[in-house]
C-alpha cells in the first residue's frame, strides 16, 4: 500500500510514535473518516476533541484495529504508520492481535471482566501465555501500582473487580491495559461515566503514565483536553480540522471552525 506523506507537526524535541496519513474509513456506505492525517508523538498525551459523531472515537479505534471485529467496516485508503517499525498498522498483512498486544485500550465505561481483581489484571498476561505464578504476581502488582490502585486493593485481590467503585474499576481497567507493557494506550472518553473526584484521579494518572507510554485520548470535555494533553486535534464531520500543541490550539486556534468550537459557539 502506498503511504502518503504525513502532516509535519514541526515540534522540537519530540519523537514520532505513530503517524496517521490521509486515512479514509467507512462504516458500510458511511464515510466516517475523510483523509485524516495527524502525528502521534512518543511519550506525549494527544487528545482528540470534537462534537459527537465527528469521528474521534472511530479514529481511535483504528489504532488497535477494533473495527475488524464487525463486518462492513472498511479501511479505505491511507494508513497509520507505527514507529520504530515503520509499518502501516492497517495493512491487511498485519495481525490485529499483534497490534493489540502493543497498543492497549481503556474504554468509556469501566468494563472489568467478571473475574477477581487479580485475574482482571493478569488477563492481558495470560493471553500472552504467561503461566509462571511469581512472574504474574510481580507484573500484576506493578501494574496495579502503576494505576495507583495497589494501596486500595492489595489485601482484596481475590474479590470481584465489579465490587470496586466506578473510579476504582476504571483504574483497574488501566492496570489491565498497563500489565502487558504496551507502547501506546488508547483512552476512549475514560472519565465520562465517572464523578468529578474519580475523574481528577484518572487525569492525574494519565499525566503520570506518559513517562511510560504514549497516550491517545478521546474526550468531549475540552477542559480535560486542555488540562492533560500536550497535543490536541480538533475533528469535525470526519475531517481533521486542526492539530497543534494544546496551549496554542486553545489560546490561538488557526482556524475559525476550531475557535467557534472551543469558545462554545457551537457543538
Amino acid at each position, binding site marked *: 500500500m502506498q503511504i502518503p506523506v504525513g502532516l509535519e507537526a514541526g515540534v522540537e524535541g519530540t519523537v514520532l510514535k505513530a503517524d496517521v496519513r490521509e486515512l479514509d474509513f467507512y462504516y458500510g456506505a458511511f464515510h466516517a473518516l475523510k483523509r485524516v492525517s495527524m502525528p502521534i508523538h512518543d511519550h506525549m498525551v494527544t487528545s482528540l476533541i470534537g462534537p459527537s459523531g465527528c469521528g474521534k472515537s472511530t479514529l481511535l479505534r483504528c489504532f*488497535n484495529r*477494533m473495527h475488524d*471485529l464487525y*463486518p462492513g467496516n472498511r479501511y479505505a485508503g491511507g494508513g497509520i504508520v507505527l514507529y520504530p517499525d515503520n509499518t502501516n498498522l492497517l495493512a491487511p498483512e498485519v495481525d490485529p*492481535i*499483534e497490534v*493489540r*498486544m502493543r497498543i*492497549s*485500550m481503556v*474504554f468509556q*465505561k469501566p*468494563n*472489568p*471482566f*467478571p*473475574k477477581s481483581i487479580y485475574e482482571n489484571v493478569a*488477563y*492481558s498476561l*495470560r*493471553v*500472552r501465555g504467561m503461566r509462571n505464578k511469581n512472574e504474574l504476581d510481580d507484573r500484576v502488582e506493578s501494574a496495579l501500582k502503576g494505576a495507583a490502585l495497589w494501596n486500595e486493593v492489595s489485601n482484596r485481590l481475590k474479590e*470481584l473487580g*465489579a*465490587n470496586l467503585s466506578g473510579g476504582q474499576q476504571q483504574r483497574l*481497567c488501566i492496570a*489491565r*491495559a498497563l500489565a*502487558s507493557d504496551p507502547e501506546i494506550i488508547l483512552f476512549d472518553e475514560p472519565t465520562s461515566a465517572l464523578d468529578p473526584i474519580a475523574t481528577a484521579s484518572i487525569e492525574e494518572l494519565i499525566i503520570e503514565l506518559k513517562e511510560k507510554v504514549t497516550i491517545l485520548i478521546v474526550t468531549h470535555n475540552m477542559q480535560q483536553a486542555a488540562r492533560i494533553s500536550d497535543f490536541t486535534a480538533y475533528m469535525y464531520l470526519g475531517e481533521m480540522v486542526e492539530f497543534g500543541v494544546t496551549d496554542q490550539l486553545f489560546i490561538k486556534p488557526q482556524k475559525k471552525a476550531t475557535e467557534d468550537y472551543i469558545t462554545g459557539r457551537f457543538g
Partner: protein
Amino acid sequence: MTASAVLPSHHGAPSTSIGNGVSDRLRKKASRHVKERIIEALLFSAAAFSVFVTVAIVYVLVKESWVFFQTVPLSDFLFDTQWTPLFDDAHYGIMVLLSGTLTSSGVALLVAIPLGTIIAIYLSEFAGFKLREIAKPFLELLGGVPTIVYGYFALTFLTPILQKIYPDLPGFNLLSAGLVMGIMIIPYVASLSEDAMRAVPMALREGSYAMGATRLQTALWVVTPAATSGIASAYILGISRAVGETMILAVAAGMQPNLTFNPTEPGATITSYIVQVALGDLPHGSIGYQTIFAAGLTLLLMTLAFNLLGYWLRKRFREVY
C-alpha cells in the same frame, strides 16, 4: 384523625383549602379505575391458574401415593432391590427404575452437554450473522421432532449400528436410547446457552479483544464465565428433559426393570414404567396401579431437586458484570 388531614402543605395551609376544589379535568375518573381493576383481575387469574394447576398435580400425586404407602412401607420402596409389582411375589424397589432413569439420562447428558455447549460457543462467538440465522432454526427443528420418531430411530437405526461395533448388545438397551435422547436435548442446551452468551455485553468482548485475546480466549475466558448462570439454566433444563423423557425409552430401552448402571443392558425407567402401567389392563385402585403415582411423585421430587440445585448454582456462581 388521618395524617393527610392535619399535615399542612408547604404554604402552611391544609391541602383541601387550596384552590377552588377539584376541577373536572383533574378529578379521578371512575371508568378508568374500573377498567384498570378488570385488567388486573384478568392478569391475576391467569397467574393464579398456573399456580392452581401445579398445586392440583401435587395434591393428586401425594393423595394417591398416600394410598400406596398405606400398603407398601416407605423403607421397602426406597431400599428394595427388585421392582416386580405385577408378580405374585410383589416387590416395590424404586431404585430399580431410578437406576434406569439415571443411566439413560447420564448417557444423554454426556452427549448433549458437551455438544450443546460447543455448538453454543460456535454460534455465538464464531459463526457469522448469516450462518447463525440459518443454523439456529435448523437446530431448533431438531427439538421439534416428535420423540416417538427418535425412539424408532434409536431402535431401528442406531442399535443395529452399535451392534456392529459391539455384537453382544441386546436389541433393547439404554445406550442407544440415551444417545438419541442426547441428540434430542442438544437444541435445548445449545439454544439457551447461546442466548445467554449473546446477552453478555459487547463491552466485555471488546475489553478482551483489546487486550490482544484471540476469539477462542475471549469465548472461553470471558464470555462463557460471564454467561455461567444462563448456561447452568440450560443444563438444568436439559437434565429435566432427560429425566422426564418417556417415548424414546419406552420404544428403544426395553421396559424391563433392571437394577443396573450398565448402559449396554436393557432397562425400564420411571417414565417408561408409568406408560406401561397406564396403558396396561391393571384395574384402577389396585396396588399395582397405585405404584405409578408413587413413581410419578419420585420423578417430580427429582426434577424439583434439580431445579433447586440449578437455582443454588446460579446464585453461587453468578458472575457479576
